[in-house]
Protein backbone atom coordinates (compact mmCIF):
# COMPACT_ATOMS: atom_id res chain seq x y z
CA UNK A 1 0.00 0.00 0.00
CA UNK A 2 1.16 3.54 -0.69
CA UNK A 3 1.28 5.95 2.27
CA UNK A 4 -1.92 7.61 0.97
CA UNK A 5 -3.71 4.26 0.74
CA UNK A 6 -2.63 3.46 4.30
CA UNK A 7 -4.01 6.81 5.46
CA UNK A 8 -7.31 6.22 3.60
CA UNK A 9 -7.72 2.73 5.04
CA UNK A 10 -6.84 3.86 8.58
CA UNK A 11 -9.23 6.82 8.28
CA UNK A 12 -12.16 4.64 7.18
CA UNK A 13 -11.35 2.14 9.95
CA UNK A 14 -11.43 4.84 12.62
CA UNK A 15 -14.52 6.46 11.10
CA UNK A 16 -16.23 3.05 11.34
CA UNK A 17 -17.29 2.67 7.71
CA UNK A 18 -15.33 -0.54 6.98
CA UNK A 19 -17.34 -3.75 6.77
CA UNK A 20 -16.86 -6.40 9.48
CA UNK A 21 -14.25 -8.53 7.68
CA UNK A 22 -12.17 -5.57 6.58
CA UNK A 23 -12.36 -3.97 10.02
CA UNK A 24 -11.18 -7.17 11.71
CA UNK A 25 -8.31 -7.53 9.25
CA UNK A 26 -7.21 -3.92 9.80
CA UNK A 27 -7.41 -4.24 13.60
CA UNK A 28 -5.31 -7.43 13.50
CA UNK A 29 -2.78 -6.16 10.94
CA UNK A 30 0.66 -5.96 12.59
CA UNK A 31 1.99 -3.44 10.01
CA UNK A 32 3.43 -0.65 12.21
CA UNK A 33 2.78 1.99 9.51
CA UNK A 34 -0.92 1.10 9.44
CA UNK A 35 -1.20 0.98 13.23
CA UNK A 36 0.57 4.35 13.52
CA UNK A 37 -1.83 5.83 10.94
CA UNK A 38 -4.77 4.46 12.96
CA UNK A 39 -3.40 6.05 16.15
CA UNK A 40 -3.10 9.40 14.32
CA UNK A 41 -6.68 9.19 13.06
CA UNK A 42 -7.98 8.26 16.51
CA UNK A 43 -6.27 11.33 17.93
CA UNK A 44 -7.52 13.58 15.11
CA UNK A 45 -11.17 12.55 15.34
CA UNK A 46 -11.43 11.97 19.11
CA UNK A 47 -12.93 15.43 19.81
CA UNK A 48 -16.01 14.36 17.77
CA UNK A 49 -16.92 12.06 20.66
CA UNK A 50 -17.94 15.19 22.56
CA UNK A 51 -21.04 15.28 20.31
CA UNK A 52 -22.41 12.18 22.08
CA UNK A 53 -24.16 13.36 25.25
CA UNK A 54 -22.99 11.51 28.40
CA UNK A 55 -25.57 9.10 29.83
CA UNK A 56 -25.62 7.09 33.07
CA UNK A 57 -24.91 3.40 32.40
CA UNK A 58 -27.33 0.83 33.86
CA UNK A 59 -26.75 -0.03 37.52
CA UNK A 60 -25.05 -3.39 37.90
CA UNK A 61 -22.89 -3.00 34.83
CA UNK A 62 -19.70 -2.70 36.85
CA UNK A 63 -20.57 -5.92 38.69
CA UNK A 64 -20.99 -7.64 35.31
CA UNK A 65 -17.62 -6.32 34.11
CA UNK A 66 -15.97 -7.46 37.32
CA UNK A 67 -17.49 -10.92 37.01
CA UNK A 68 -16.21 -11.24 33.44
CA UNK A 69 -12.74 -10.12 34.52
CA UNK A 70 -12.68 -12.74 37.25
CA UNK A 71 -13.61 -15.50 34.81
CA UNK A 72 -12.03 -14.48 31.56
CA UNK A 73 -13.56 -17.19 29.42
CA UNK A 74 -14.94 -14.34 27.45
CA UNK A 75 -14.35 -13.64 23.85
CA UNK A 76 -16.39 -10.45 23.90
CA UNK A 77 -16.63 -10.73 20.11
CA UNK A 78 -18.88 -13.74 20.42
CA UNK A 79 -21.67 -12.39 22.53
CA UNK A 80 -24.40 -10.10 21.38
CA UNK A 81 -26.76 -10.14 24.35
CA UNK A 82 -26.35 -10.92 28.03
CA UNK A 83 -28.57 -13.95 27.81
CA UNK A 84 -26.66 -15.44 24.92
CA UNK A 85 -23.53 -15.93 26.98
CA UNK A 86 -24.88 -18.56 29.39
CA UNK A 87 -26.41 -20.29 26.38
CA UNK A 88 -23.07 -20.23 24.60
CA UNK A 89 -21.28 -21.62 27.63
CA UNK A 90 -23.91 -24.30 28.14
CA UNK A 91 -23.71 -25.12 24.45
CA UNK A 92 -19.95 -25.50 24.64
CA UNK A 93 -20.22 -27.77 27.68
CA UNK A 94 -22.85 -29.86 26.01
CA UNK A 95 -20.72 -30.22 22.90
CA UNK A 96 -17.73 -31.16 25.05
CA UNK A 97 -19.74 -33.66 27.06
CA UNK A 98 -21.26 -35.14 23.93
CA UNK A 99 -17.90 -35.55 22.26
CA UNK A 100 -16.43 -37.05 25.40
CA UNK A 101 -19.22 -39.57 25.58
CA UNK A 102 -18.62 -40.42 21.95
CA UNK A 103 -14.84 -40.63 22.19
CA UNK A 104 -14.52 -42.52 25.44
CA UNK A 105 -17.47 -44.80 25.53
CA UNK A 106 -15.52 -48.03 25.33
CA UNK A 107 -12.38 -47.61 27.43
CA UNK A 108 -12.79 -46.27 30.97
CA UNK A 109 -9.84 -43.94 31.45
CA UNK A 110 -9.13 -41.51 34.30
CA UNK A 111 -11.27 -38.31 34.24
CA UNK A 112 -10.47 -36.65 30.96
CA UNK A 113 -9.60 -32.98 30.84
CA UNK A 114 -10.77 -31.41 27.65
CA UNK A 115 -12.42 -28.47 26.01
CA UNK A 116 -13.96 -27.58 22.69
CA UNK A 117 -13.12 -24.22 21.18
CA UNK A 118 -15.95 -22.69 19.20
CA UNK A 119 -15.78 -20.52 16.10
CA UNK A 120 -17.37 -17.10 15.86
CA UNK A 121 -20.40 -18.87 14.41
CA UNK A 122 -20.50 -21.06 17.52
CA UNK A 123 -19.47 -24.12 15.52
CA UNK A 124 -17.09 -26.58 17.21
CA UNK A 125 -13.69 -25.74 15.74
CA UNK A 126 -11.02 -27.39 17.87
CA UNK A 127 -10.87 -30.27 20.33
CA UNK A 128 -8.24 -29.93 23.07
CA UNK A 129 -7.58 -32.97 25.23
CA UNK A 130 -5.12 -33.72 28.00
CA UNK A 131 -3.30 -36.87 27.00
CA UNK A 132 -0.47 -38.73 28.72
CA UNK A 133 0.37 -35.67 30.80
CA UNK A 134 0.56 -33.47 27.68
CA UNK A 135 -2.03 -31.90 25.41
CA UNK A 136 -3.42 -32.83 22.04
CA UNK A 137 -5.16 -30.42 19.66
CA UNK A 138 -7.26 -31.55 16.73
CA UNK A 139 -9.13 -29.45 14.17
CA UNK A 140 -12.81 -30.39 13.99
CA UNK A 141 -13.53 -28.12 11.08
CA UNK A 142 -10.16 -27.24 9.54
CA UNK A 143 -9.94 -23.66 8.25
CA UNK A 144 -6.69 -22.26 6.89
CA UNK A 145 -5.26 -19.19 8.63
CA UNK A 146 -5.70 -15.99 6.58
CA UNK A 147 -2.98 -15.35 3.99
CA UNK A 148 0.28 -14.26 5.61
CA UNK A 149 -0.86 -15.12 9.17
CA UNK A 150 -0.38 -18.06 11.46
CA UNK A 151 -2.35 -19.54 14.35
CA UNK A 152 -0.56 -19.80 17.69
CA UNK A 153 -1.63 -21.95 20.62
CA UNK A 154 -1.36 -20.72 24.23
CA UNK A 155 -2.10 -22.10 27.68
CA UNK A 156 -2.79 -20.09 30.82
CA UNK A 157 -3.00 -22.10 34.07
CA UNK A 158 -5.55 -20.80 36.53
CA UNK A 159 -4.00 -18.08 38.67
CA UNK A 160 -1.16 -17.40 36.22
CA UNK A 161 -0.87 -13.91 34.79
CA UNK A 162 0.84 -14.60 31.46
CA UNK A 163 0.03 -17.33 28.95
CA UNK A 164 2.69 -19.79 27.77
CA UNK A 165 3.15 -20.32 24.06
CA UNK A 166 2.63 -23.91 22.97
CA UNK A 167 3.83 -23.15 19.47
CA UNK A 168 2.35 -22.58 16.05
CA UNK A 169 -0.45 -24.69 14.65
CA UNK A 170 0.49 -26.40 11.36
CA UNK A 171 -1.97 -26.38 8.44
CA UNK A 172 -3.05 -29.93 9.35
CA UNK A 173 -4.41 -28.54 12.61
CA UNK A 174 -2.99 -31.46 14.60
CA UNK A 175 -0.65 -30.65 17.48
CA UNK A 176 0.79 -32.78 20.26
CA UNK A 177 2.37 -31.02 23.22
CA UNK A 178 4.81 -33.11 25.25
CA UNK A 179 4.15 -33.42 29.00
CA UNK A 180 7.28 -31.39 29.88
CA UNK A 181 5.99 -28.23 28.17
CA UNK A 182 2.58 -28.04 29.75
CA UNK A 183 0.86 -29.43 32.83
CA UNK A 184 -2.84 -29.64 32.00
CA UNK A 185 -5.00 -28.72 34.96
CA UNK A 186 -8.71 -28.08 35.45
CA UNK A 187 -9.54 -24.46 34.65
CA UNK A 188 -6.51 -23.99 32.41
CA UNK A 189 -7.34 -21.50 29.68
CA UNK A 190 -6.48 -22.59 26.13
CA UNK A 191 -6.47 -19.96 23.43
CA UNK A 192 -5.58 -19.63 19.77
CA UNK A 193 -4.47 -16.24 18.48
CA UNK A 194 -3.82 -14.86 15.01
CA UNK A 195 -0.16 -13.86 14.67
CA UNK A 196 2.37 -12.67 12.09
CA UNK A 197 4.50 -15.33 10.34
CA UNK A 198 6.76 -17.05 12.85
CA UNK A 199 4.40 -16.31 15.72
CA UNK A 200 4.04 -13.47 18.19
CA UNK A 201 7.22 -11.39 18.44
CA UNK A 202 6.58 -11.15 22.21
CA UNK A 203 6.36 -13.78 24.91
CA UNK A 204 2.64 -12.85 24.99
CA UNK A 205 0.01 -12.96 22.25
CA UNK A 206 0.21 -9.93 19.95
CA UNK A 207 -2.84 -10.64 17.79
CA UNK A 208 -6.55 -11.14 18.45
CA UNK A 209 -7.88 -14.23 20.24
CA UNK A 210 -9.79 -16.31 17.71
CA UNK A 211 -10.69 -19.24 19.92
CA UNK A 212 -10.69 -19.75 23.66
CA UNK A 213 -11.85 -22.34 26.16
CA UNK A 214 -11.13 -23.80 29.60
CA UNK A 215 -10.05 -27.35 30.35
CA UNK A 216 -12.60 -29.23 32.39
CA UNK A 217 -13.16 -32.85 33.34
CA UNK A 218 -15.63 -34.23 30.82
CA UNK A 219 -18.75 -35.61 32.50
CA UNK A 220 -18.95 -39.39 32.45
CA UNK A 221 -15.29 -39.90 31.57
Amino acid at each position, binding site marked *: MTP*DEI*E*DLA*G*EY*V*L*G*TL*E*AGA*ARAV*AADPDPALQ*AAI*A*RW*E*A*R*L*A*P*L*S*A*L*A*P*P*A*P*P*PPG*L*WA*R*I*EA*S*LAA*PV*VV*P*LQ*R*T*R*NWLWPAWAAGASAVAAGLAAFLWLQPAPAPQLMTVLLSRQDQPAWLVQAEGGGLRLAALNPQPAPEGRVLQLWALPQGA*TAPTSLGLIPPSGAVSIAPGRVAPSPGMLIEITLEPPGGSPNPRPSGPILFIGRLAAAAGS
Partner: protein
Amino acid sequence: MDSAAQLAAIAGGDRAALRALYDAEAPRLFGIALALLRDRDRAADALHDGFLNIARRAGQFDASRGAASAWTGAVVRHAALDIARRQGREIPTDDPALGDIPVEAEALTQVAAADDGRRLRDCLLALEESRRRGILLAFVHGLSHAQIAAKLELPLGTVKAWIRRGLAQLRGCLT
Protein backbone atom coordinates in the same frame (compact mmCIF):
# COMPACT_ATOMS: atom_id res chain seq x y z
CA MET B 1 -3.54 10.07 39.58
CA ASP B 2 -3.76 11.44 36.02
CA SER B 3 -5.47 9.26 33.46
CA ALA B 4 -2.26 8.11 31.77
CA ALA B 5 -0.93 6.92 35.14
CA GLN B 6 -4.32 5.30 35.73
CA LEU B 7 -3.98 3.30 32.51
CA ALA B 8 -0.44 2.28 33.50
CA ALA B 9 -1.81 1.00 36.83
CA ILE B 10 -4.58 -0.87 35.00
CA ALA B 11 -1.97 -2.46 32.72
CA GLY B 12 -0.28 -3.72 35.89
CA GLY B 13 -3.50 -5.44 36.94
CA ASP B 14 -4.68 -2.83 39.44
CA ARG B 15 -8.42 -3.52 39.74
CA ALA B 16 -9.04 -0.44 41.91
CA ALA B 17 -7.59 1.77 39.16
CA LEU B 18 -9.97 0.18 36.65
CA ARG B 19 -12.86 0.82 39.03
CA ALA B 20 -11.76 4.45 39.44
CA LEU B 21 -11.65 4.83 35.64
CA TYR B 22 -15.15 3.34 35.42
CA ASP B 23 -16.49 5.69 38.09
CA ALA B 24 -14.98 8.71 36.36
CA GLU B 25 -15.59 7.82 32.72
CA ALA B 26 -18.54 5.43 32.43
CA PRO B 27 -21.16 8.14 31.64
CA ARG B 28 -19.04 9.66 28.87
CA LEU B 29 -18.19 6.24 27.42
CA PHE B 30 -21.76 4.94 27.75
CA GLY B 31 -22.93 8.08 25.93
CA ILE B 32 -20.55 7.30 23.06
CA ALA B 33 -21.84 3.71 22.83
CA LEU B 34 -25.47 4.82 23.12
CA ALA B 35 -25.10 7.35 20.28
CA LEU B 36 -23.68 4.57 18.11
CA LEU B 37 -26.14 1.80 19.01
CA ARG B 38 -29.29 3.67 20.15
CA ASP B 39 -30.24 0.79 22.44
CA ARG B 40 -29.40 0.73 26.15
CA ASP B 41 -28.87 -3.05 26.34
CA ARG B 42 -26.55 -3.10 23.40
CA ALA B 43 -24.73 0.00 24.63
CA ALA B 44 -24.25 -1.76 27.99
CA ASP B 45 -22.79 -4.76 26.11
CA ALA B 46 -20.43 -2.38 24.32
CA LEU B 47 -19.29 -0.76 27.56
CA HIS B 48 -18.78 -4.22 29.08
CA ASP B 49 -16.70 -5.41 26.13
CA GLY B 50 -14.90 -2.08 26.02
CA PHE B 51 -13.85 -2.28 29.66
CA LEU B 52 -12.60 -5.85 29.24
CA ASN B 53 -10.53 -4.60 26.30
CA ILE B 54 -9.29 -1.62 28.32
CA ALA B 55 -8.19 -4.01 31.08
CA ARG B 56 -6.47 -6.31 28.57
CA ARG B 57 -4.84 -3.70 26.38
CA ALA B 58 -4.05 -0.83 28.76
CA GLY B 59 -0.36 -1.67 28.28
CA GLN B 60 -0.69 -0.68 24.62
CA PHE B 61 -1.71 2.89 25.48
CA ASP B 62 1.01 5.28 24.31
CA ALA B 63 0.72 8.78 25.76
CA SER B 64 2.87 10.18 22.95
CA ARG B 65 0.11 9.27 20.49
CA GLY B 66 -2.81 10.98 22.20
CA ALA B 67 -4.78 11.55 25.38
CA ALA B 68 -5.93 8.69 27.60
CA SER B 69 -9.56 9.80 27.17
CA ALA B 70 -9.18 9.56 23.37
CA TRP B 71 -7.77 6.05 23.74
CA THR B 72 -10.51 4.79 26.07
CA GLY B 73 -13.12 6.45 23.85
CA ALA B 74 -11.69 4.65 20.82
CA VAL B 75 -11.66 1.26 22.55
CA VAL B 76 -15.33 1.61 23.53
CA ARG B 77 -16.28 2.99 20.09
CA HIS B 78 -14.74 -0.02 18.35
CA ALA B 79 -16.47 -2.41 20.76
CA ALA B 80 -19.77 -0.69 19.87
CA LEU B 81 -18.99 -0.76 16.14
CA ASP B 82 -18.24 -4.50 16.38
CA ILE B 83 -21.68 -5.02 17.93
CA ALA B 84 -23.29 -2.85 15.25
CA ARG B 85 -21.57 -4.90 12.53
CA ARG B 86 -22.54 -8.22 14.09
CA GLN B 87 -26.14 -7.12 13.93
CA GLY B 88 -25.74 -6.27 10.26
CA ARG B 89 -26.19 -2.67 11.42
CA GLU B 90 -29.88 -3.37 11.79
CA ILE B 91 -30.12 -0.39 14.02
CA PRO B 92 -32.95 2.02 13.43
CA THR B 93 -31.78 4.97 11.38
CA ASP B 94 -35.22 6.35 10.61
CA ASP B 95 -35.27 8.47 13.74
CA PRO B 96 -35.67 11.93 12.25
CA ALA B 97 -33.57 13.42 15.06
CA LEU B 98 -30.59 11.47 13.78
CA GLY B 99 -30.14 13.93 10.97
CA ASP B 100 -30.11 16.80 13.43
CA ILE B 101 -26.74 16.08 14.91
CA PRO B 102 -24.95 19.36 15.14
CA VAL B 103 -23.18 20.28 11.96
CA GLU B 104 -23.44 24.04 12.24
CA ALA B 105 -20.74 26.32 13.49
CA GLU B 106 -22.25 27.13 16.88
CA ALA B 107 -23.35 23.55 17.57
CA LEU B 108 -19.83 22.31 16.97
CA THR B 109 -18.66 24.31 19.97
CA GLN B 110 -18.74 21.04 21.94
CA VAL B 111 -16.12 19.71 19.56
CA ALA B 112 -14.09 22.88 19.91
CA ALA B 113 -14.26 22.61 23.70
CA ALA B 114 -12.57 19.20 23.66
CA ASP B 115 -8.78 18.93 23.75
CA ASP B 116 -7.42 19.78 20.31
CA GLY B 117 -10.99 20.26 19.17
CA ARG B 118 -10.85 23.83 17.92
CA ARG B 119 -8.72 22.98 14.94
CA LEU B 120 -10.90 19.99 14.08
CA ARG B 121 -14.03 22.15 14.30
CA ASP B 122 -12.52 24.71 11.93
CA CYS B 123 -11.43 22.00 9.50
CA LEU B 124 -14.89 20.37 9.61
CA LEU B 125 -16.50 23.71 8.87
CA ALA B 126 -14.25 24.04 5.82
CA LEU B 127 -15.85 20.86 4.39
CA GLU B 128 -18.88 20.95 2.15
CA GLU B 129 -21.95 20.33 4.31
CA SER B 130 -22.83 16.86 2.96
CA ARG B 131 -19.29 15.63 3.50
CA ARG B 132 -19.29 17.03 7.02
CA ARG B 133 -22.66 15.44 7.75
CA GLY B 134 -21.59 12.07 6.32
CA ILE B 135 -18.46 11.99 8.45
CA LEU B 136 -20.38 12.91 11.61
CA LEU B 137 -23.13 10.34 10.94
CA ALA B 138 -20.47 7.64 10.55
CA PHE B 139 -18.32 8.61 13.54
CA VAL B 140 -20.98 9.56 16.07
CA HIS B 141 -23.86 7.31 15.00
CA GLY B 142 -22.07 4.38 13.37
CA LEU B 143 -23.91 4.61 10.08
CA SER B 144 -22.57 2.55 7.17
CA HIS B 145 -21.98 4.03 3.72
CA ALA B 146 -25.33 2.61 2.60
CA GLN B 147 -27.19 4.06 5.59
CA ILE B 148 -25.62 7.46 5.06
CA ALA B 149 -26.58 7.31 1.37
CA ALA B 150 -30.18 6.55 2.32
CA LYS B 151 -30.23 9.26 4.97
CA LEU B 152 -28.82 11.95 2.73
CA GLU B 153 -30.67 10.67 -0.37
CA LEU B 154 -27.49 10.41 -2.37
CA PRO B 155 -26.12 7.56 -4.53
CA LEU B 156 -23.93 5.08 -2.61
CA GLY B 157 -20.91 5.67 -4.84
CA THR B 158 -21.14 9.41 -4.29
CA VAL B 159 -21.23 8.98 -0.53
CA LYS B 160 -18.22 6.65 -0.55
CA ALA B 161 -16.22 9.07 -2.69
CA TRP B 162 -17.25 12.10 -0.62
CA ILE B 163 -16.35 10.50 2.67
CA ARG B 164 -12.99 9.41 1.33
CA ARG B 165 -12.30 12.90 -0.02
CA GLY B 166 -13.66 14.50 3.14
CA LEU B 167 -11.23 12.47 5.24
CA ALA B 168 -8.33 13.35 2.95
CA GLN B 169 -9.31 17.02 3.19
CA LEU B 170 -9.49 16.80 6.99
CA ARG B 171 -6.07 15.18 7.12
CA GLY B 172 -4.61 17.91 4.93
CA CYS B 173 -6.26 20.60 7.05
CA LEU B 174 -5.11 19.09 10.36
CA THR B 175 -1.52 18.31 9.40
